[in-house]
C-alpha cells in the first residue's frame, strides 16, 4: 500500500513543482505576504495627522500644544485659525483629529473652572477614531497631573493603575503576527489542495486513477500528504521569520506549537480536499476555496474578537478550524501555554479533519459524472 501512496505523492509533487509558475506561486508569495502583512496589521497609531485650532494665547494652551507636538503618536499637519477651515481638512482626510482649545482655556484653568478642549475626529473608521481619542485623553491626563501638582490642587480620590499581562506595552503587532502565521498556512494548504482533485476530474485523469488498484484511502493519502508536508515546511519558515525578524516572543514549547500545526493542517487539508472533490470544474473548486477561506479568516477572531459576535455567528465559528489554531498560536507564543492547556483547541480540529477527510474519500467514488 505504501509504495502506491508514495508513487502518488511523488506524482503530486511533480505536478505542483514542475510548472515554473506554480512553483513560484507556492513559495514566493507567502513569504512576501508575511513581511508586508506583518507590518500592515496593527491597530497602534503612529503619526496621527492632526490640526491645532488654538484660540487661547495663554501659557496653558501653549503647554498643552507642546505636549501634543512632543508625542510620537501625533503629527501636526495643519494649523487652523477659524472654524471654517476645519471641515475641508477633515473631509479631505488631511487630518484625523482637530484639537480646538477654547479662548478662555488658560483663564479657566487659573480660576479653577473646567477648561474646555474640544476634539473633532474623523469617524469614517470608528475604531481608529476611538483609539486616537484615547491617546489624546492620555496626553490631557498627563497635562492635568502636571498642572495639579504645580498648583497644589487636591489629587483625585482614586486613580487607575493598569497592568497588562503577556503584552506589557499592548503592542497589537504581537496579537496580529501569530494570526498571520495561521492565515498564511491556511492559504497555502488551500492553494495546494482545493484544485487538485477538481483538476484531475476536469481533465479526466481522476477516472483513470479510480480504475487503478489504488483504494480511495490510498488516493486520499496521496492527495493529502503533499499539502501536509509543504504546509509544515512553509509554516516553519514563516514562524522562523516571525520570531527572528519581527521579534515576536515564542514563550511556549515547540511540541505544543507543532501539535497544533499538525492538527490544523489535518483539518485544512481535509476541508480543501473535500471542496476539491465536491467540485466538478476547477472554477467551482476555486469558488469553494474562497467560500471557505474568506469566512474562515474573517470569523476566526483574527481582526475582531469572537466575543463581539452575536450568539448565532459564534456557533458558526465552532466549525472554523482557524479559530482554534489562532488561539493556540497566541497562547503558545505569548503566554507560553503548555500542550495540556490547549486540549480543548486540539480535539475540535482533529474532529473537523477526520470528518472532512472521510467526506472527501467518500466523494471520490460517489461523485462521478
Amino acid at each position: 500500500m505504501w509504495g502506491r501512496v508514495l508513487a502518488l505523492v511523488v506524482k503530486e509533487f511533480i505536478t505542483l513543482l514542475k510548472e515554473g509558475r506554480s512553483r513560484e506561486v507556492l513559495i514566493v508569495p507567502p513569504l512576501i505576504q508575511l513581511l508586508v502583512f506583518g507590518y500592515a496589521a496593527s491597530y497602534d497609531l503612529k503619526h496621527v495627522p492632526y490640526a491645532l485650532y488654538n484660540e487661547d494665547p495663554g501659557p496653558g494652551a501653549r503647554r498643552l500644544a507642546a505636549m501634543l507636538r512632543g508625542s510620537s503618536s501625533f503629527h501636526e499637519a495643519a494649523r487652523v485659525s477659524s472654524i471654517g477651515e476645519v471641515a475641508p481638512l477633515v473631509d479631505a482626510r488631511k487630518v484625523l483629529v482637530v484639537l480646538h482649545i477654547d479662548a478662555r482655556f488658560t483663564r479657566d484653568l487659573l480660576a479653577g473652572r473646567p477648561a474646555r478642549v474640544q476634539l473633532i475626529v474623523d469617524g469614517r473608521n470608528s475604531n481608529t477614531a476611538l483609539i486616537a481619542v484615547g491617546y489624546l485623553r492620555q496626553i490631557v491626563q498627563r497635562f492635568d497631573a502636571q498642572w495639579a501638582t504645580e498648583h497644589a490642587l487636591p489629587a483625585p480620590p482614586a486613580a487607575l493603575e493598569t497592568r497588562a499581562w503577556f503584552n506589557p506595552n499592548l503592542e497589537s503587532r504581537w496579537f496580529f503576527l501569530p494570526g498571520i502565521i495561521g492565515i498564511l498556512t491556511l492559504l497555502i494548504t488551500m492553494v495546494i489542495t482545493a484544485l487538485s482533485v477538481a483538476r484531475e476530474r476536469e481533465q479526466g485523469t481522476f477516472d483513470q486513477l479510480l480504475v487503478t488498484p489504488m483504494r480511495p484511502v490510498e488516493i486520499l493519502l496521496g492527495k493529502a500528504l503533499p499539502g501536509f508536508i509543504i504546509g509544515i515546511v512553509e509554516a516553519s519558515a514563516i514562524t522562523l521569520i516571525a520570531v527572528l525578524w519581527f521579534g515576536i516572543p515564542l514563550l511556549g514549547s515547540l511540541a505544543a506549537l507543532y501539535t497544533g500545526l499538525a492538527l490544523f493542517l489535518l483539518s485544512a487539508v481535509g476541508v480543501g480536499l473535500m471542496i476539491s472533490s465536491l467540485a466538478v470544474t476547477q472554477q467551482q473548486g476555486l469558488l469553494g476555496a474562497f467560500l471557505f477561506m474568506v469566512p474562515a479568516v474573517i470569523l476566526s477572531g483574527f481582526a475582531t474578537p469572537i466575543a463581539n459576535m452575536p450568539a448565532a455567528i459564534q456557533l458558526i465559528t465552532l466549525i472554523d478550524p482557524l479559530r482554534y489554531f489562532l488561539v493556540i498560536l497566541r497562547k503558545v507564543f505569548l503566554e507560553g501555554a503548555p500542550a495540556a492547556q490547549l486540549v480543548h483547541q486540539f480535539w475540535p480540529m482533529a474532529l473537523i479533519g477526520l470528518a472532512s477527510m472521510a467526506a472527501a474519500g467518500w466523494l471520490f467514488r460517489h461523485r462521478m459524472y
Partner: protein
Amino acid sequence: MSATGMRLRGLVRKEFLQIVRDPSSIAIAFVMPVALLLLFGYGLSLDVERVPVALVVESPSADTADFVASLRGSRYFAPAAVPGMPQAERALLEGRVDAIVRLRADFAARERSARGAPVQLVVNGIDANTARLVEGYMDGALTAWMMRRAAENGRSFAPPVDVEHRVWFNADVRSRNFLVPGLMVVIMTLTGALLTAMVMAREWERGTMEALIVTPVGIGEILLGKLIPYFVLGIGGMLLSVAMARWLFAVPLTGSFWLLLATSAVFMLVALGMGLLISSVARIQFVAGQVALITTFLPAFLLSGFIFEIGNMPRVVQAITHLFAARYFVAIVTTLFLAGDIWSVIVPNTLVLALMAVIFLGLTRLKTRKRLD
C-alpha cells in the same frame, strides 16, 4: 448591425449561456455577496460591550459597594465578584474574563487621603486593542463615579481640563458603519476577480481558443465578449450589497447613489480586468486559480485601509498598498456612505481606478494574441 456588433453579440450570448449552465458564476455574483455580507455584517464588530470582568473587593464597604454598583450599571462591563486574586488570575488565564479590577483592603481609607486610592486593573494584553478599549472605558467609569460622588457630597471634583470629543460622520461610533462598506469592497474584489480569473485560461486549456482564433473574431471582441456579461453580473451583485448595507445593516448612505454606482462601475472594471489579466497570463486554470486566491482576498482585506489604517504602515508597505485597487475604492466607499459627496476624496481616487482599469485591460489585450506559442 455591423459585423463587429453581430460577432460581439454572439460571443456575449455564448458567455451568458455558459454562465447559466454552470451555476457557479451566478453563485459568485449573487450568492457569495449576500452570504458573505450577511455573515460578516452581523459577525464583525469592534464595539466592546459587556466585557467579562472579575471583581476583587478585598474589604467591602459602602464606598466600594457604590463603585461596584456603578460598574454594574455600565454597558461596557459585565462584572462578576470573585473572592480573591488567585481565583481572578486563574479566570484571566483561562480566558473566562478579559480583565480584573481589584479594590485593595485600604481603598476606603486611602480614598480620603491626599494621594488618593489606587484602583488596580489587570488586563489580558494579548488582544491589545480590546485591552486598550477596556482600559479607556474603565478610566471613564472611574472618573464618572468620582464626579458623581463629589457632587453628592457637595464637594467639587473635576480634572482641570474638560475634554469633549465629537466624532464626525459616525456620531454613535458604530464600527459596523465602516466595516460593512469596507466588506463590500472586499467582496466586490473577490467577485470581480473570481468571475474572470478562469475564463480565458479555460478557453486556452480546453482548446476552444484555437477554434476562436480561426474565426474572423478579433481579440478586442473576444475580450469585450468576456467583459460585458461579467460586468453585468458584477454590478448586479454590487447593487444587492448596497441594498443590504442600506436597509439591513442601516448604514446611512450620505452621498449620492448615482456617484456610488458610477465609481463602483469603474472599480468593477478594475477587478474584472485583473481577473482577465491573471487568466490570460496564466493560461492554465490551475495556476490562474492559485494566483487569484493569493492576490485578491488578503491584500484587499489587510492592505486596503478597511481595517488597518494605511497611514500607520511603514513607507515601503504604504507604497505597496498603492498597487491594490481596493485601497482607492475603500476611500471612496466609506466617504460616500458616511461623509457624503466629497469631491477632494472621490475625484483623485476614481481617476487612479480608471487608470488601473486601462492598464489591466490594456495589458490583457497585449498578452492575448491570436497565436499559438
